[in-house]
């Protein structure tokens, strides 16, 4: 039975008001030479009214994990295991297709990568948003619908005239804000935004990020923001989860991760970001060194870690609490 009660979060297993609880998510991609382990037992919680950033480099599995939560993984990918409990009651990964369709967009919505380029070029903005609403809530009276859409527009900071325009008449930033409007149209508890600003200019990026923060404040909606730009995360999110090669290695409030990253990979990632405030020598590192089909036994980061020991080579360090809200998967902190 689905719980369509929309008053908000349930209580997660760690006692806080949780909107989404992901447990031991595993996703594999079949290839002709064996399975690529894209997501390797990832667990995390998203609390009510927070923005969680999911960070990692290309191939780390962040997009795959998000797609898995929404059950959008296509063959040759498959979800092996895991739970994604929404609002404390509904496990997304075990719903039937019909039940899932009811939950999608109304409880949890998605702004996919490159969303702004996927707007229907032959439909006016108002019709696209209306489409989205009516698909899930059935036919609406015209006047009510128009008011709703105009309100959404204002919420994301778009001028009224956008209502009747076509996508090609809008700039990149405006298109992205239309996508955000569509994602919040049905007032979901959680929005997943995959690289929401990656193709945008710096100043526009700031405006879109501000829009996301505005929405969080006004609607109380939680968000999972996926990206690779730590700088943006610093400005936007409350907590950060760092992924490496399919594994979650650290999860903590953003300030903690940036000021004092604990996991050696987080440290490496943060050190390699060039700053615009201070000129200093570049920190050079190697890239991903193992084949995703054949990860090393033990800790996933052992091939690049400056603190590696024999124990790391055989035992997988579990994600452990170092602080009430800070978890690391590294034997240095056992």
């Amino acid at each position, binding site marked *: 039975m689905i719980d369509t009660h929309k008053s908000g979060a349930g209580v997660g297993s760690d006692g806080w008001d949780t909107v989404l609880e992901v447990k031991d998510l595993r996703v594999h991609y079949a290839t002709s*030479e064996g399975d690529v382990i894209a997501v390797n037992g990832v667990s995390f919680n998203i609390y009510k009214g927070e923005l969680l950033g999911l960070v990692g480099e290309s191939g780390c599995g962040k997009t795959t994990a998000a797609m898995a939560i929404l059950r959008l993984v296509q*063959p*040759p990918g498959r979800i092996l295991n895991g739970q994604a409990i929404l609002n404390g009651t509904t496990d997304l990964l075990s719903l039937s297709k019909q039940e899932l369709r009811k939950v999608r967009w109304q409880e949890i919505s998605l702004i996919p990568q490159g969303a702004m380029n996927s707007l229907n070029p032959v439909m006016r903005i108002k019709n696209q948003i209306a489409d989205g609403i009516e698909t899930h809530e059935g036919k609406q009276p015209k006047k009510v619908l128009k008011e709703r859409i105009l309100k959404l527009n204002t919420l994301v900071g778009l001028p009224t005239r956008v209502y009747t325009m076509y996508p090609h008449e809008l700039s990149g930033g405006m298109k992205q804000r239309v996508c955000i409007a569509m994602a919040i149209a049905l007032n979901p508890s959680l929005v997943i935004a995959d690289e929401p600003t990656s193709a945008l200019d710096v100043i526009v990026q700031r405006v879109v990020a501000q829009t996301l923060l505005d929405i969080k404040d006004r609607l109380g909606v939680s968000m999972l923001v996926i990206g690779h730009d730590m700088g943006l995360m610093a400005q936007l999110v409350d907590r950060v989860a760092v992924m490496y090669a399919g594994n979650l290695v650290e999860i903590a409030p953003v300030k903690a991760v940036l000021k004092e990253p604990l996991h050696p990979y987080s440290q490496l990632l943060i050190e390699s970001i060039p700053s615009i405030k201070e000129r200093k020598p570049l920190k050079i590192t*190697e890239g991903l*060194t*193992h*084949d995703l089909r*054949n990860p*090393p036994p033990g800790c996933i980061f052992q*091939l*690049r870690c400056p603190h*590696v020991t024999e124990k790391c080579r055989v035992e997988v360090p579990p994600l452990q609490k170092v602080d009430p809200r800070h978890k690391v998967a590294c034997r240095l902190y056992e």
Partner: protein
Amino acid sequence: MTTTTAEQTVLAKKITPFFKRWHSPWLNGKLLLGLVIFLAMVSIEFVGPLFWDKKLAFMAAAPTNIVPIWVEGIPGPTFKPANPAHPLGTESQGRDMLAVLIVGTPRSLRVGLIGAGLGMLVGIVLGFTAGLLGGWVDSLISTLADVVITIPGLAVLVVIASYIPQVEVINMALIMALFAWPLPTRLIRSQVLSMRERGYIQMAQLSGASTLDIMFKEMMPNLLPYLAASFTGNVSAVILAATGVETLGLGPTRIPTLGMTINNALSFSAIFRGMWWWWSPPMVVLIIIFVSLFLMTIGLDEIANPRLRGAES
């Protein structure tokens, strides 16, 4: 450095070479099936004469109106009973049907291959020129191609063919090529236009490659599946057009072709008289040829455009 050693150990187990990847798409089921059937048709030219006498394909080479061997009795007063010397029977002018197939099939194939080949050649030259040079040259060639496409080809072909006294395979192929060049031209031009902006073409320019180098060494290899698909499609079209023209009686008269055989059958009222073994063998062969070319074209289309392959890509 530990990192390098680990990297090398892992690299040793890396993906198998390009060979495996590049050949998997080429091992397309439809392409292979079509190819096998087509080659079987081509081989008739070489294998046939080993078992059968080609001379039986000419007029008055055998007794007329013999029914095929699996027919019992005589379906009509003018027919003669089955004779093992002529398994597919003979027609009203004394030609043995099996021999006709053995002689006629290669000729139809030749018209198709040469006509389409010439059309492709012209198409490659014009298509590349239009795509790479652009400007008025492009406009000229494109407009010309568009005009020729809209002209009713068969009608013009009939007119031309009726003026040429001796319509041999080569002449027929040349006439067909006149109408076979616009589509390859358009195809290649559009591919060249999209390839021109690719990064590796810009790189080749920066590396001092001449225009010819770029055409043949950089663009062509990536165009091969498209070219091949266009070619097989064209062969089909040319054979169809040539057969059409021949069926109207405008083909070579001395040595039989598939189209001319149908024409003869029609002139002698074979349908009316129930002489199905006169007009159906050429049709069956033509159908087999078309089906095989169609399979090849579809297969090559799938190779050229991975999105058509379905779930695996």
